[in-house]
């Protein structure tokens, strides 16, 4: 490679050729031992027998998965029927995360578009404004949201004093509160990739469409959206995946009716009521769902690049 040419995204500079593995060794050791090995260990634990005060007995068992999917009655001797409790919790989590993703998209797309069409000097300030809240501690943001929307919180007090409402809105402990919390937690993940896509958008496409008498909204729907779609899909994944396993928003803003995967898993490892193999099995199922989503995304991405 000619000296001076910028290093490409693929990392084509080979100035330190041959030392790749030496330089990557610490990463492999740390992530390999303390993340990859633990995930494999967790997979093993999901096939073990539970110990009653937390922990496991080293005996192979399919009980954890069996308990997740099937109901065998109180004494375990009835013919198995599908058990809806845990599948229902997973389904609700997917639903909640999906709604939060759609909300993020509906608010995030116009915001990203607006920022990307500012003057180049002011774009970074707008982006900075959108990302600051993300860097504030997630727990503190969630607690702040809880404080704001409580029945006796400032939002309700304010609306009551204006006589807009006669009784508190009752937002807390609802599905809506959880979605609001998830939206609030992950919105910047939607804005940033869409912004990156819109910034590269070639406006001569819009001009061509306008010359052919397309209306503003037709241009948005038929020209802009297909072009910036990779950014939108990336944003949706970045919001959906962490929302699915979120713990703080459902735990602090939701109630018993809004129980999600994160809380289900957490409960298995707290106190004496815990069931480690079951928690490990639920984690494995969550991990499988997430990896499937990411795989489908990666395959589409490769196809789009090949085109």
């Amino acid at each position, binding site marked *: 490679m000619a000296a001076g040419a910028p290093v490409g995204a693929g990392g084509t500079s080979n100035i330190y050729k041959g030392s790749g593995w030496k330089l990557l060794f610490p990463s492999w050791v*740390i992530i390999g031992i303390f993340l990859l090995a*633990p995930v494999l260990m967790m997979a093993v634990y999901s096939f073990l027998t539970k110990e009653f005060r937390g922990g496991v007995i080293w005996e192979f068992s399919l009980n954890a998965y069996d308990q997740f999917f099937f109901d065998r009655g109180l004494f375990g001797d009835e013919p198995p029927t599908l058990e809806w409790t845990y599948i229902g919790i997973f389904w609700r989590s997917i639903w909640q995360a999906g709604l939060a993703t759609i909300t993020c998209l509906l608010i995030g797309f116009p915001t990203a578009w607006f920022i990307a069409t500012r003057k180049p000097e002011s774009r970074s300030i707008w982006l900075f404004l959108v990302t600051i809240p993300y860097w504030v501690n997630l727990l503190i943001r969630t607690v702040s949201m809880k*404080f704001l929307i409580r029945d006796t919180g400032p939002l309700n007090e304010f609306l009551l004093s204006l006589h807009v409402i006669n009784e508190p809105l009752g937002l807390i402990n609802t599905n809506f509160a959880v979605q609001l919390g998830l939206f609030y937690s992950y919105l910047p993940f939607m804005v940033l990739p869409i912004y990156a896509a819109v910034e590269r958008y070639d406006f001569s496409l819009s001009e061509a469409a306008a010359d052919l008498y397309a209306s503003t909204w037709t241009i948005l729907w038929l020209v802009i959206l297909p072009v910036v779609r990779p950014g939108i899909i990336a944003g949706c994944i970045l919001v959906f995946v962490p929302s699915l396993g979120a713990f703080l928003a459902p735990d602090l803003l939701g109630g018993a009716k809004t129980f999600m995967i994160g809380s289900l898993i957490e409960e298995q490892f707290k106190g004496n009521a815990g069931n480690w193999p079951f928690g490990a099995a639920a984690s494995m199922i969550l991990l499988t769902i997430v990896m499937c989503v990411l795989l489908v995304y990666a395959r589409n991405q490769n196809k789009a690049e090949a085109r």
Partner: protein
Amino acid sequence: MAASTNLRRFPGFLTVTIICLFVLYAPLIVVAVYSFNASTSITNWGGISLAWYVDVFTGPEAPKFQQAALNSIIIAVCASIVATIVATLAAVAMTRAGRFRGKTLSFALINLPLMVPEVVTAVASLVFFSAIGFTTGLTTILIAHTVFCIPFAYLPISARMQSIPDMYEQAAMDLYATPREAFKLVLLPLMTPGVLSGFLLAFIISLDDFLITNFVKGAGIETLPTAIFGSVKQGIKPNIMAISTLMLVVSVVFVSLSWLIGRMGQEKT
């Protein structure tokens, strides 16, 4: 020309942006305002006072939160330093060592902590530490934090390194610098802004973490987020709002610093 500017505008997008910023900032501003409330009740406004800030530092819960804050800072500093060093080496490998076997796999490995859901990482870490008989405590928190800080440190560092052409190092090596010298004396100073923002990012991510810490912390050891969570479970008290506001200020200062350093670096090249 007028047509081309109109094509950039959609009716209502400005309104949505304002709503978006309002939703993002309203809860934080409300809590910051209420942290100066003189009243002991968290709902009624009793005038401006610094009472709750005094309470944070001298009140009955002060020692607990101070110990937790100290733990958080120790862990964040150690984890982000280790993560930054590891990520810098990895970034050199990915951007400067040409093609080699297992490169794509290594890239996936570095980003693995971002792909695995946080709750799964938490469970896996707990299970792993208990299986190898490791007592949970500060060390286990430190290890777990180092792991998930690596990709966050890696992102700005590798982005920065990709934007630096390798002609400077080539020139140094033409003048008989060894690869090690070229790295230390030429590349490292050039990418300092990237390394610094990587470090700051890792630091904030470590301070931010609740879920993984909560799983691997062991009995009796608290970081600031786990201590706040424990306290909030019994109701939001005014001292929590004061602590939250302080942490908010720290985060904003750190992010602003990171942003300014990033800009400084861009202007130089």
